[in-house]
């Protein structure tokens, strides 16, 4: 089976990046997040929580690899198993228990990359990839200087508030391309490299901003109507309100 070259390259790049030191997590911790993401799919507590009206009704311990802090394990399991019912109250309990917004945002990006690549390979009938090798080094701990509170649960970096030391995450990536500042683009912007990690993967899988704006052209082997129908179905299955 032949996979589009840009699609294959984006997935390979995103996968290998998980093993490199990030902004707030080491390479080993990032790979541990990916491993926990996979492991969480068989968690009995998550299964029990999904079956009841509110996940808070079921207490217990996650079936975990125990390579990460408890707050990170709770975050990973909930984001994988029950994303549609995540609320701000739950999110704030993670912060109160010591998981910083910065660590959380980078974790969200790694969970999303892992879920996405694993979902693609399973859907296409391909074997899952082994986790990437861990690269040594320290996290950069780069936090943008001018952040805006109140749009999302986490602070965001608006395009006009970038300082010279912030990557041009709204314009330049592996290939320079315009990247709009819709709210969904802002979601991971507290950690610019996490935002770029995600969008450099997602755009070849879906469409980039320029392709989305050119709706009269069919950019993929399925039509734009088919793309949007499938996307809407997955969003509904995950009870996503965005």
């Amino acid at each position, binding site marked *: 089976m032949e996979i589009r070259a840009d699609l294959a390259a984006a997935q390979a790049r995103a996968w290998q990046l998980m093993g490199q030191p990030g902004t707030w997590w080491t390479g080993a911790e990032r790979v541990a997040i990916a491993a926990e993401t996979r492991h969480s799919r068989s968690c009995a507590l998550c299964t029990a929580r999904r079956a009841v009206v509110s996940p808070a009704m079921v207490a217990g311990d996650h079936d975990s690899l125990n390579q990460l802090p408890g707050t990170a394990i709770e975050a990973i399991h909930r984001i*994988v198993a029950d*994303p549609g019912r995540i609320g701000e109250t739950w999110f704030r309990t993670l912060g109160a228990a010591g998981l910083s917004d910065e660590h959380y945002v980078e974790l969200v990006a790694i969970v999303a990359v892992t879920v996405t690549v694993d979902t693609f390979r399973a859907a296409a009938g391909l074997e899952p990839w082994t986790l990437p090798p861990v690269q040594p080094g320290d996290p950069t701990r780069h936090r943008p200087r001018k952040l805006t509170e109140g749009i999302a649960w986490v602070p965001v970096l608006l395009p006009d508030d970038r300082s010279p030391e912030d990557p041009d995450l709204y314009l330049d990536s592996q290939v320079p391309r315009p990247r709009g500042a819709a709210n969904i683009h802002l979601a991971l912007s507290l950690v610019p490299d996490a935002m770029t990690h995600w969008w450099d993967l997602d755009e070849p899988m879906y469409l980039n901003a320029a392709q989305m704006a050119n709706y009269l052209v069919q950019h993929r*082997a399925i039509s734009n109507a*088919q793309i949007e129908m499938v996307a809407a179905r997955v969003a509904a299955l995950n009870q996503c309100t965005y």
Partner: protein
Amino acid sequence: MGVDQEDELLAFADAAVNGEQSELASARQLVVDSLGVDAMVDAAAIIAGFNGITRIADATGIPVEPRKLAETEEWRAALGIDRFMAGKT
């Protein structure tokens, strides 16, 4: 008016997100048979990408832009999307 190969594509999405291996294999084959391998790969990419990005949106509490919210008010209610908000804790 529907979308071409609507049933095959929706079954593929359902199986890829929630299905068993055997269910996914048969759903995949139906898409290949009706649309071809390239279409199956691109459909798998859309499914996978949205299986990731929905988690980003839900986990960060990023809201729909006010303008879009206003434009979609009627059909969000009609489709029952607003009900998803009630389950958030």
